């Protein structure tokens, strides 16, 4: 394997040995890498970090609930063509003009190898992953309108993320390399904080982390705060200069950690009484 194509992690992204391995296996075997994990564990950032460390361009295809597999390949803009034919604009005879490549298509035709991130694949329809099997396997697709086959010159490095909102189909899973990003333990979390903010005041970090892990321990919360929220919170605490003693007691700027009013109420109740029934 080319030394250049070996993912080592980057300066701004803390990566475990296992994840590094998984990435390199996926690159070497030219298979998509499926990354699962809680929201906010840095799944999307991984792709950025891979692109950065391998010095390759990054294409992001953000999947939404309405996204169809076809959207990633190409879109044929019939309406534009119709309009153009009415007004005599553009080169209507040239269908190619009205075929617009999607992100997957772009990744295929790119002259150099790119990193393609298919973000939050589980947001889409249940059949979505199945519709992409052939394209991801063969790295090619056929444009019906122009009778052209788009084939990847360089197989892109494909990173797929999932929040596990939906189960993915077996046939799709079989073709992927899989890695589950665990929620970082305290030690790893410190490392992540250091990577982002350098050396912070020890007392601030430890107080904030203690409060943070206490929150995460509350089962009743609908949405647990994640790494990215802890980082935001730390920066809010730093900027505001809240005294360190108050952090655990008052939980200032709690809105940064908990995004739902209900969760904030639940949290307060738990801290007072030790339990909460509000959730239900």
């Amino acid at each position, binding site marked *: 394997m080319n030394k250049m194509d070996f993912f080592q992690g980057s300066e701004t992204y803390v990566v475990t040995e296992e994840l590094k391995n998984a990435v390199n*296996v996926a690159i070497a*075997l030219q298979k998509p890498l499926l990354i699962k994990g809680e929201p906010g564990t840095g799944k999307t950032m991984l792709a950025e970090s891979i692109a950065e460390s391998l010095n390759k361009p990054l294409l992001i295809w953000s999947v939404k609930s309405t996204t169809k597999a076809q959207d990633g390949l190409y879109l044929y803009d019939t309406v534009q063509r119709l*309009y153009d034919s009415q007004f005599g604009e553009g080169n209507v005879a040239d269908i190619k003009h009205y075929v617009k490549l999607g992100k997957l298509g772009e990744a295929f035709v790119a002259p150099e190898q790119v990193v393609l991130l298919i973000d939050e694949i589980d947001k889409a329809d249940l059949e979505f992953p199945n519709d992409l099997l052939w394209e991801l396997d063969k790295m090619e697709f056929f444009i019906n309108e122009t009778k052209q086959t788009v084939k990847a010159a360089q197989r892109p490095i494909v990173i797929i993320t999932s929040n596990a909102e939906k189960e993915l189909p*077996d046939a799709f*899973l079989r073709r992927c390399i899989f890695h589950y990003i665990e929620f970082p333990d305290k030690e790893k979390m410190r490392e992540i904080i250091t990577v982002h903010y350098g050396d912070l005041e020890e007392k601030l970090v430890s107080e904030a982390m203690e409060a943070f892990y206490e929150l995460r321990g509350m089962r009743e919360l*609908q949405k647990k705060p994640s790494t990215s929220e802890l980082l935001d919170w730390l920066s809010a605490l730093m900027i505001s200069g809240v005294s360190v003693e108050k952090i655990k007691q008052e939980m200032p700027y709690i809105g940064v950690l908990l995004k739902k009013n209900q969760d904030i109420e639940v949290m307060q109740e738990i801290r007072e009484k030790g339990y909460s029934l509000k959730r*239900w």
Partner: protein
Amino acid sequence: MFLEFFYLLRARGLSVSLNEWMMLVEAMDKGLGGSSLTGFYHLCKSILVKSESEYDKLDAVFAEYFSGIEFREDLPEEFLKWLNEDVRVRDINDKTMMDKFLLELDELLQRFHERMAEQKERHDGGNYWIGTGGTSTMGHSGYHESGIRVGGEGRHKSAVQVAGERHFSDFRQDTILDIRQFQMAFRKLRQYSSRMEGDKTVLDIDKTIEETSDSGGLLKIVYDKPRKNTVKLLLLIDSDGSMMPYSSLCNRLFQAASKSNHFKDLKVYYFHNCIFDYLYTSPMCKRGDWVDTEWVLRNLDGEYKVIFVGDATMAPFELFRRGGNNVIGLFNEEPGIDWLRKFKRRYKKQIWLNPIEEQYWDNLYGRETLLEISELFPMFELTLDGLEKGIKKLLVK
């Protein structure tokens, strides 16, 4: 190389396919694992396992294979076959049931072997079909109301009986049952989205023609918002032994629901007698094949319509006490009734379908719990009629 390892993985329930195995071999060829066992382990983890819930299985197999540590699980998980016929209805009050069961088992086994012999000549014998271990579609997806599960080492079975297990097997395999009537009932479970939400993605032909004519033949395309069914359904099915007699009925209901593709979303989980900390993902209610009930409550919003299916009869302590869950090792801190109340609070519309005929409801073993539950949720008979009434209830604004 390591072929036994491959078969061991499969035997322990990790459905590793040949594809993935070849991928692993390729990876090793490329020297990706280094030459250490740890490297190999990491390779296996990322290539052979597709869900974090299965990491543990891999670990166990790894330990078993590479350090000779004995694996402690009562039964190998690869099924050789679910026998298709021979419905055995369980009589709750019959104390000699076990003896009878064993007798019947002998008979079943004999038929099983006969059928195996038969299959050498005919491979695709319709519902006669016997799955051969280690090859394809088997595993967890075989279903019939009752039958033998035969497991064994490798492919050439020394038949092991798995008696006393739950007899609801996976509902998903098609059985030829008349489910149309149920399906028609489910059809009525529709609530259209208002024209207010969503993107304009559907071509409105009438308006397009009108507008185009208005502008003197100059094409003007008009889009409209599609109307979609917004009903999301959560189906929770009791798969306890006492539900055995009704399994085919429940099966029909399940099939009808799963074939009705007009729901915005359909989620199906199973429980064992009453709802506790976990909801099972398959009707076998196997340990580990579950999700946290809390997860379901958290992730399925209040708009879901909930249909419970169960006989609602159990010993009072199962419903009212901590530790009422009688599955060994699953002590519940909160009594079942509290879990049911959580559903009650979370969801706006819910009904309970009971396969027991309504006329017996206040005159049978377990009426105490049945009564309590029917006070929480409107309860209907699991009949076509009951389902229709229930659906009306679900649709009341």
